[in-house]
C-alpha cells in the first residue's frame, strides 16, 4: 500500500515492515520522508492528525481550530497561563502556520556549538536552506503587499528609527486572503502536505493519517516496533484497529511537546527528555486606530522587527503582527463584559502586535517541562520568572511606543485588568502592572526543545547527528531538538535541520 491512508480505510490490524518509520508528518517528518524515499528507502509515516485539503478549509475559526490544532485548539500550559497554538494534521503545523520563513540565525548556531557541542554551522545548513526555499517558493514580501495591521507595526518602528523589514513567506500565487491559520483555501501556502509529503508518496512512501502512536517498543540499544492506534477521521475516537510497524530505523518527528511525550510513554526517560522546552512566549498589545485596519484580511504576518533581539544579559525579543479574527480575538481580548465586548465591537479598528521572548539563552534558564497527562498526552508546565517579567514589560512598552508613534488612538494591554495607554506618560503604569500566571495573556505559536541535541547525554536527548544517545536506531527530527529558542519563526529551521539529519539516517540505513 502506498499513498495517504485515512483511518477509516484501515479495516484490520496491520503489520508493516519498512526500512524507516517516521512518527509525525510536520516539516521535520515530511522532509525526512521525502529525502529517504528519494534515496530508495521504504518509508512509512504515522500521523495522528487527519488528512485535510483545501475543499475542507471553510475559513471559519470554529471549524478550523478543533480540526487542525492540538487538543482541538485548546492546548495550554497546565495552569492555562500560556495558550499553545500548535498544528495537528497531515503536514503538521505547516498547514496552519502564518508562513513566516527565516533561516536560523548564525549566532544561535554558534551558541549551540559552543554550549552544547552541536555540529550545525551556517555552511553545513546552507544547501538545505537553499533547497527548502526553492521547493516551498519562499520569497521576500514586497512592502506594497503588507496589510494595514502589519503596516502599522512597520511604520511605527520606522518612525522610531528601529530596524524592521518585510519577511519571507512560503507561498505561490497567494491571494492574501488572511486565512493561513485556518488552512489555505486556495493551496497557495506551500505546506508540507502539498510539497514534501507528496514528493515522498510519489517515491513509494505510505502516510497513515488518523494514526496515534502510543509507544515505541525497544530493548537494549534497539527500537523494534512502533505501535499506532487508528482513529476515526471524523470523531478522532479509536476504531480499535492498530498499525504495528517494525522498521530498521525509527524517526520521531512529533514536534516539541509530542515527541518528548512519546519517548516518556515508551519508557525512554534518559537524559533531558521533556526538559528545557522553549516557547518564544509572546505578549501582545491591542492598538485602536481611527481608520479601519481590518486585520482579518491580508497576509497575517509580513513584517518583523528584530531591533530588540540582543539586549545583553536580558532576554531579547522580536516584534511581529498577529491576525485579528473574531474567535482568536475573543480569546485574547482582556476583561469581560462591556470592557471586552466594547473592544470587540471595534474589531476592524484594532491592530494586534506581538512581542516574542527569545528564551533559552539566560544562565540557568530552565524553560518548560513536558511530563505525561493521565491520558498519556503531553502536560506542559512553563513557570514565568523575573527574566520573563522584565522581558514582557520591555516588550509591551516597545509595542506601545511603536503604535503611539504611528498615531494609534489608544492601546490596551492584556493584563487583568487591562492597562490603557494613550500617551508616553502611561508607559509607567504599563510597566507597573502585575505579571504572573493569568495576570496577563501570554501565548506561544513556536514550540521548541524537549529532545535537545548535544554532546552530553545528561544535558540532551539526541547526539549532534540527532540520533538518540542510547537507542542506536532512533532519531529525532523536529523542533524538539533545538537546544534553545531560535529568535525567529521556526518552520524553515525545522525543515533544514531535519533535511540535514536525513543524511545521517541514510548513512545509517546503508550501514545497517
Amino acid at each position, binding site marked *: 500500500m502506498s499513498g495517504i491512508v485515512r483511518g477509516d480505510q484501515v479495516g484490520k490490524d496491520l503489520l508493516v515492515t519498512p526500512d524507516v518509520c517516521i512518527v509525525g508528518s510536520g516539516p521535520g517528518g515530511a522532509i525526512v520522508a521525502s529525502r529517504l524515499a528519494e534515496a530508495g528507502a521504504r518509508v512509512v509515516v504515522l500521523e495522528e492528525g487527519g488528512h485535510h485539503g*483545501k*475543499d475542507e478549509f*471553510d*475559513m*471559519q*475559526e*470554529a471549524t478550523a*481550530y*478543533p480540526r487542525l490544532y492540538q487538543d*482541538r*485548539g485548546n492546548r495550554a500550559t*497546565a*495552569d*492555562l*497561563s500560556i495558550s499553545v497554538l500548535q498544528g495537528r494534521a497531515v503536514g503538521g503545523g505547516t498547514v496552519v502556520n502564518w508562513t513566516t520563513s527565516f533561516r536560523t540565525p548564525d549566532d544561535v548556531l554558534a551558541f549551540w556549538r559552543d554550549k552544547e557541542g552541536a555540529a550545525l554551522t551556517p555552511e553545513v545548513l546552507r544547501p538545505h536552506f537553499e533547497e527548502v526555499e526553492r521547493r516551498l517558493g519562499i520569497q521576500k514580501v514586497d512592502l506594497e503587499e503588507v496589510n494595514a495591521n502589519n503596516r502599522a507595526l512597520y511604520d511605527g518602528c520606522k518612525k522610531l528609527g528601529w530596524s524592521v523589514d518585510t519577511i519571507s513567506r512560503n507561498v505561490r500565487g497567494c*491571494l492574501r*486572503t488572511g*486565512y493561513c491559520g485556518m488552512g489555505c*483555501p*486556495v493551496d497557495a501556502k506551500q505546506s508540507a502536505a502539498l510539497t514534501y509529503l507528496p514528493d515522498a508518496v510519489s517515491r513509494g512512501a505510505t502516510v497513515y493519517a488518523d494514526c496515534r502512536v502510543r509507544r515505541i517498543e525497544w530493548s537494549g540499544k534497539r527500537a523494534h516496533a512502533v505501535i499506532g492506534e487508528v482513529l476515526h477521521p471524523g*470523531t*478522532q*475516537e479509536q476504531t480499535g484497529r492498530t498499525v504495528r510497524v517494525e522498521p530498521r530505523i525509527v524517526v520521531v518527528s512529533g514536534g516539541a511537546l509530542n515527541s518528548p511525550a512519546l519517548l516518556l510513554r515508551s519508557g525512554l526517560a534518559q537524559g533531558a527528555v521533556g526538559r528545557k522546552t522553549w516557547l518564544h512566549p509572546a505578549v501582545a498589545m491591542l492598538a*485602536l486606530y*481611527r481608520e479601519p485596519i481590518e486585520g*482579518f*484580511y491580508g497576509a497575517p504576518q509580513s513584517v518583523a522587527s528584530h531591533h530588540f533581539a540582543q539586549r545583553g544579559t536580558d532576554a531579547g525579543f522580536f516584534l511581529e503582527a498577529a491576525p485579528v*479574527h*473574531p*474567535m482568536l*480575538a*475573543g*480569546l485574547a*481580548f482582556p476583561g*469581560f*463584559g*462591556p*470592557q*471586552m*465586548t*466594547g*473592544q*470587540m*465591537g*471595534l*474589531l*476592524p*479598528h484594532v491592530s494586534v502586535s506581538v512581542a516574542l521572548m527569545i528564551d533559552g539563552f539566560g544562565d540557568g534558564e530552565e524553560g518548560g517541562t513536558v511530563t505525561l*497527562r*493521565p*491520558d498519556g*498526552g503531553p502536560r506542559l*508546565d512553563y*513557570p514565568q520568572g523575573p527574566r520573563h517579567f522584565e522581558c514582557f514589560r520591555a516588550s509591551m512598552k516597545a509595542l506601545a511606543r511603536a503604535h503611539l508613534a504611528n498615531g494609534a*488612538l489608544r492601546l490596551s494591554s492584556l493584563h*487583568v*485588568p487591562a492597562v490603557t495607554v494613550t500617551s508616553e506618560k502611561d508607559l509607567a503604569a504599563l510597566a507597573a502592572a502585575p505579571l504572573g*500566571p*493569568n*495576570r496577563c495573556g501570554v501565548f506561544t505559536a513556536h514550540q521548541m526543545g524537549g529532545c535537545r541535541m548535544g554532546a552530553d547525554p545528561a544535558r540532551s536527548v539526541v547526539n549532534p547527528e540527532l540520533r538518540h544517545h542510547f537507542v542506536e536506531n532512533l532519531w529525532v527530527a523536529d523542533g524538539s531538538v533545538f537546544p534553545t529558542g531560535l529568535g525567529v519563526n521556526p518552520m524553515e529551521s525545522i525543515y533544514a535541520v531535519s533535511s540535514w539529519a536525513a543524511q545521517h539516517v541514510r548513512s545509517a540505513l546503508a550501514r545497517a
Partner: protein
Amino acid sequence: METRRGFLKKTLGGAALLAAAGAVPLALRKTQLRAARQPLRFFTPAEYSVFAAVAERVLARGPWQVPPELAGALRSRPPAPAPSEVDVAGKADAFLAPLDAASAKELKQLLALFDNALFSVLTGGPPRPFTRMSPVQQDEHLERWATSRMAVRRTGFQALKRLSAAVYYGAPETYASVGYPGPPDELVRTVNAARGRP
C-alpha cells in the same frame, strides 16, 4: 508551581473542611436551573446552567469608554445577539463532549466551586450560588476570580471566560456585531468556482 490540576483538589478540600465545621446548609444551596435546548452530552443540567449564567455576564454589553473618534463606528453595528440566542452553553456542551476524562473532571469541579455559596462567602462574596446572584453581584464575583491572589482561581476564571468568548465569537451570527464581514464574498466565489460549485 501551583497548577490547575493541583488547585481544585486543594480548594475543594479546604471548602469541604469548613463545610464540615457547620456551614453545610450554605454549601447545599442549589443552582438556579435553566433548560437546555438540546440533550446534553457533557454538562449536567446544573453545570449547563452555571456555564450559561457565566457566559451571559462575560458577554454582557454595556457602557464602555469608547474613544470619541470611534463612537460612530460602534453605534453603526447591528445589535449583538444574546449569548442564549447563539446557544453558547449548548455549543460549549457539544465542543466539550470529547474532552479527556481528567480535564472533564476538573472543569466540572470548577463549575461546582464557582456556583458554591459557601465558597463565595469564604472569598468575600454574597451567601448564594452564582446563578442566584444579581447581575452586579455576578460581575463582582467574576472580578474576584479574575484578580484573585490565588493563581488557581485566576486559572478558573480564564477557563470559563475563554470558552464563552471562543464559542460566541466563533459563531457566524455574531460577526456583523463586531464589524467582521466574514470571508470576503469575492474570495468565496473564487474558491467555489475552483471547486466546481455554483
